[in-house]
């Protein structure tokens, strides 16, 4: 059933696929991010409780969703690498990791900047914030482990184990932190509940979500492309690639 996927395990094919997909992802990302952000900042109505500070939602929520989505994608790539012994799967994993880490950082930072006016503190040990912080550590762990090995195939296998172990732990961490928080702090934090959000507020959010997803996709593809070339330096097709790019540069 997954047979159609197998040809893309070959680095050269994967490189070509990246090359084909990248412009599409990049275009969607730029267009949706511009539309979503302008709409969210200028045209969406202010929240009746939080005023204009709620506009942070247009980057906070998409980045938070993508931080977790990217982690799952990274772990799936790692699992694929382990099961089918694909080198490209590990390359995909390590291409996604920094992008996911950046998403996590954005979610944390915007959360803090939103929390200051709403809760009166830059940081509260809220369950979601705490598990997001741990998620950042998990990303950093995977990246640091990968960086520590000289042999990058070995590095991919090792970091893959941590990525998969992490994905098993993410739900456990999330629920344990939630439980810990409710035990300790109870209702001191008035959480921003999910109101039935008005459509004119929701649309820019969805557009920005699409934009962030396309952004994550585009950057991951770009990094995957670089990673593939880096890892295939000794292969003839990379030599051809370099020769072509040189020829193009000379023409210009």
């Amino acid at each position, binding site marked *: 059933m997954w047979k159609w996927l197998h040809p893309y395990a070959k680095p050269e094919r994967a490189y070509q696929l990246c090359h084909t997909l990248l412009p599409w992802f990049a275009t969607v990302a730029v267009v949706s991010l511009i539309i979503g952000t302008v709409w969210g900042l200028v045209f969406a109505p202010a929240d009746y409780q939080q005023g204009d500070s709620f506009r942070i939602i247009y980057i906070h929520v998409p980045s938070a969703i993508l931080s977790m989505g990217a982690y799952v994608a990274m772990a799936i790539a790692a699992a694929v690498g382990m099961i089918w012994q694909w080198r490209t799967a590990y390359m995909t994993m390590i291409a996604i990791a920094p992008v996911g880490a950046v998403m996590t950082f954005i979610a944390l930072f915007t959360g803090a900047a939103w929390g200051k006016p709403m809760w009166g503190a830059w940081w509260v040990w809220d369950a979601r914030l705490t598990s997001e912080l741990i998620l950042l550590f998990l990303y950093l762990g995977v990246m640091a482990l990968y960086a*520590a090995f000289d042999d990058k195939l070995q590095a991919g296998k090792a970091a893959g184990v941590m990525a998969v172990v992490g994905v098993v732990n993410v739900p456990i961490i999330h629920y344990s932190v939630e439980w810990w928080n409710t035990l300790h702090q109870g209702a001191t934090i008035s959480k921003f509940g999910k109101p039935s959000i008005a459509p004119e507020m929701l649309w820019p959010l969805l557009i920005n979500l699409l934009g962030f997803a396309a952004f994550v996709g585009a950057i991951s593809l770009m990094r995957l492309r670089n990673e593939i070339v880096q890892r295939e330096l000794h292969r003839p097709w990379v030599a051809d690639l370099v020769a072509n790019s040189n020829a193009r540069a000379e023409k210009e």
Partner: protein
Amino acid sequence: MSPYAALLKREMTLAFRQKSELIQPLVFFVLVITLFPLGVGPSPDILQRIGPGVIWVAAILSSLLGMERLFRDDFQHGWLEQLALSDASMTGLLMLKVLSHWLVSFVPLVIISPLLALLLNLTEPMYWALMATLALGTPLVSLVGAIAVGLTVGLNRGGVLLALLLIPLFIPLLIFATSAIESAAMQLPYGPQIAIIAALLLTTLALSPFAINYAVKVSLH
């Protein structure tokens, strides 16, 4: 003699030959705990309030100190290679190594915990809860730690990396363990927390052997 019994015998003999390596994490554990009364003040109420967390945090930190020893020497000397070439299940042999590591590094910690309970003014129910969480939680620390040590054993600079990999994974354990002891402090039942830790331990026990074996294989590469 079966290869498993032979390994266990060897591990125990060699562990007790490096007495300083055995005792150092334990001393570190006690030292960290004595810092807290000095840092936050000696008021018995405060100590009792923070005691469970302090003991568990110190236990996790001191375990990180000795964790590397789990596979480091045998990897560097080449004994893991010889183990991989014996007529036995590698997974089983590695689990025995984890067991012997737990016996020599965590059992002493459980044994001296009454002393620390005294230092931090814990009540008797809290003490029993502490024992229960340590008894169930420390094998979990060993098993999860073995995965990360297996992955990092081939690297020369494992130290901080190991902490970065492991501490996030130990957070649920820390939360449930301290919460159990706090429940005990308030004379509340702490069965649920213990049950959750036990469930975590059983899940880890079922899954970690494969992960540890895979991790060591990656390092033997």
